[in-house]
C-alpha cells in the first residue's frame, strides 16, 4: 500500500460511513430518505439491504484525471436496521452494518470484511397534522455512531470515533403521492489523531403509487415509484492537527427507485444512485454509482 493510496483511502473510509447512516436509517417508504411516519412496517420491523458503491474515477478538484495506478474501490454494505416504537410518537432503533471492501489497483488487490460501526438512534414525532386521506408529519432524530468496527489499517471498517447526528425529517402523504424532506448534521469526533470533518446531508424524495390505481380494502399489493435527491457535504479532515486537503467535498445523487409492498408484513425495494454532482476536495476517488436492493419485514 503506497502513501498515495493511504491518502486516498483514509478519507474513503469516512465517506462510506457518510453514505451509510443516511441510507440505512431510512425507515419509510422512500428508499434513501428517512420518514417521520413511524407506522406499520416502519414502526416495529426489520430492514436490511445490500448496497454497492463503486468508486473508480480519480478526481482532482472535481475534474477527472488519469490514474496511472488504475485504482478502484467497491464496497458492499449489508446494514441491518431494527426500529422499535416505544409509543406512537417515539421510536428507538439500532443499525448494524456488515461491510466488504475490495480495492483493486496496478499495485495489487486488497479486500476486507467485517462489522462496521453501529448506530443507535431515537426519533420523536413533533408535528402530526392528520386530515382525511392525508397526513403531514415532522420528526426529529438524534443518533450516535459507536466505534464498533475495526479502525486499523487503510481498509478500516470503522472510524474509531463516537459521532453524533441530529436530523429533522418531514413527510406529507396524500392519496397516491408522498413528499419527504430531510436534513442531517453529523458531528464527527477524533480518534488517534484523526478527526473527520463534520457532515451535512440533505435528502428529498417524491413517491407515487403506481399500482393499484384505487386502493380500497387493506391489504393489497402495491407498486411504488420513487425519485430522490440525496446530497452530502463533508468538511476536510484533520490528521494530527493538520488539515488534509484531499478530504471532504460534496456529492449529490439522483436516485430513482421502485418498491413492491407484498402484504401486511413485507416489502422489497431497489434503487440506483447516480451522482449528478461529485466534487471531492483535492485529489480523491470519485463515486461512479451506487445501487441498493433491500427488504423490510414487520416482525413485532
Amino acid at each position, binding site marked *: 500500500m503506497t502513501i498515495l493510496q493511504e491518502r486516498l483511502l483514509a478519507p474513503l473510509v469516512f465517506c462510506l460511513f457518510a453514505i451509510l447512516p443516511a441510507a440505512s436509517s431510512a425507515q419509510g*417508504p422512500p428508499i434513501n430518505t428517512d420518514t417521520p*411516519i*413511524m*407506522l*406499520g*412496517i*416502519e*414502526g416495529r420491523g426489520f430492514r436490511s439491504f445490500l448496497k454497492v458503491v463503486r468508486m473508480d474515477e480519480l478526481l482532482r478538484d472535481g475534474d477527472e484525471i488519469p490514474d496511472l495506478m488504475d485504482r478502484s474501490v467497491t464496497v458492499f454494505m449489508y446494514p441491518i436496521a431494527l426500529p422499535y416504537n416505544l409509543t*406512537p*410518537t417515539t421510536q428507538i432503533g439500532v443499525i448494524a452494518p456488515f461491510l466488504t471492501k475490495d480495492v483493486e489497483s496496478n499495485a495489487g488487490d486488497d479486500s476486507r470484511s467485517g462489522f462496521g460501526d453501529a448506530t443507535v438512534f431515537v426519533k420523536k414525532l413533533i408535528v*402530526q397534522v*392528520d*386530515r*382525511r*386521506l*392525508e*397526513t403531514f408529519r415532522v420528526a426529529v432524530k438524534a443518533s450516535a455512531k459507536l466505534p464498533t468496527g475495526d479502525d486499523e489499517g487503510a481498509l478500516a471498517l470503522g472510524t474509531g470515533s463516537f459521532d453524533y447526528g441530529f436530523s429533522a425529517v418531514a413527510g406529507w*402523504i*396524500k*392519496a397516491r403521492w*408522498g413528499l419527504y424532506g430531510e436534513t442531517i448534521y453529523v458531528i464527527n469526533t477524533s480518534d488517534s489523531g484523526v478527526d473527520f470533518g463534520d457532515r451535512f446531508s440533505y435528502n428529498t424524495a417524491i413517491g407515487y403509487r403506481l399500482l393499484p390505481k*384505487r*386502493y*380500497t*380494502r*387493506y*391489504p*393489497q399489493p*402495491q407498486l411504488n415509484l420513487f425519485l430522490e435527491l440525496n446530497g452530502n457535504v463533508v468538511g476536510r479532515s484533520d490528521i494530527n492537527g493538520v488539515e488534509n486537503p484531499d478530504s471532504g467535498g460534496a456529492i449529490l445523487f439522483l436516485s430513482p427507485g421502485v418498491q413492491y*409492498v407484498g402484504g*401486511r*408484513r413485507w*416489502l422489497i425495494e431497489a434503487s440506483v444512485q447516480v451522482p449528478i454532482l461529485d466534487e471531492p476536495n483535492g485529489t480523491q476517488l470519485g463515486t461512479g454509482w451506487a445501487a441498493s436492493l433491500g427488504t423490510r419485514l*414487520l416482525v413485532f
Partner: protein
Amino acid sequence: MTASVRSACWAIEQFTAYLHGVVFEDIFLGLARSPDLFAGWKGIAMKSKTVVAVATLLAASFAMVSTAVAQISTVTVRVDGLACPFCAYSLEKHIKAIDGTKDPVINIEQGIVTLTPVGDKTVDFDAVREAVKQAGFTPREIVVEGVGRMETIGGRATLIAEDGRELFVLAANDVLAGLEEGRREVVTFRGTVAPRRKDDDRSTLRTLTLLSATPAAKGEVKK
C-alpha cells in the same frame, strides 16, 4: 335482563315529574348500560330520593316484559391520516385488540375502518378512539348503524339498541324532529356517536346524532 331494565326505564319515566332533578335522569339512563351499573349505584346511594326510584326500577324490571329487541350492526370510524397503506398494519392490530368487535375492514380510499360488534358485548367507543390514537392516527366521527327502539325517558329522546346494552340520548336535529310522532317506534338508524366530554367522567350516556332513521321492517326486529 336488558328488556327488564329498559322497561324499568320506562317506569322511571313516570317518576321524573316527582324527582325533577336532571342529575337523576342521567343516573337512571346510565343504569341501562350494565358495565356502568355500579358507577350509577354509587351516585344513587347518596341521594335518598333516588333510593326510592331504584326500588321502583327493580320492581318494574321484574313486572314488565318487552317484546322488541334490536342491535348495532356496524361501527364505522373515520380515521384521519390514514393515507398510506403500509401504515395500516398498526391500525388493524390495535383495532383487533378491542373487546367486543370482530373483522375490522380498513378502507384506505375512504379513510375509514368498519367494525362488527360480536356476541352480546357492548362496543366501547372510548376504546375504539384510543386504539386509533395508539395506532398513530387521529380518530374522528364514529357512525353506528343498527336497529333500535326510540323512547322518551325523563323527557329526553333516547334510542335503545340491542337488548338495551347500548343506550343513546338523541341530539335534536331534523331527523329526530321528523320522527316526533313515531316515538316508541323501532327504527333502523344510522347516527354519529359524540365523543365523551372531557369534563364528564360521570355520565355513562352517549349522545347520538341521527343521520337517518326509518321504521324498521318486521324482519329487522328480533323477537
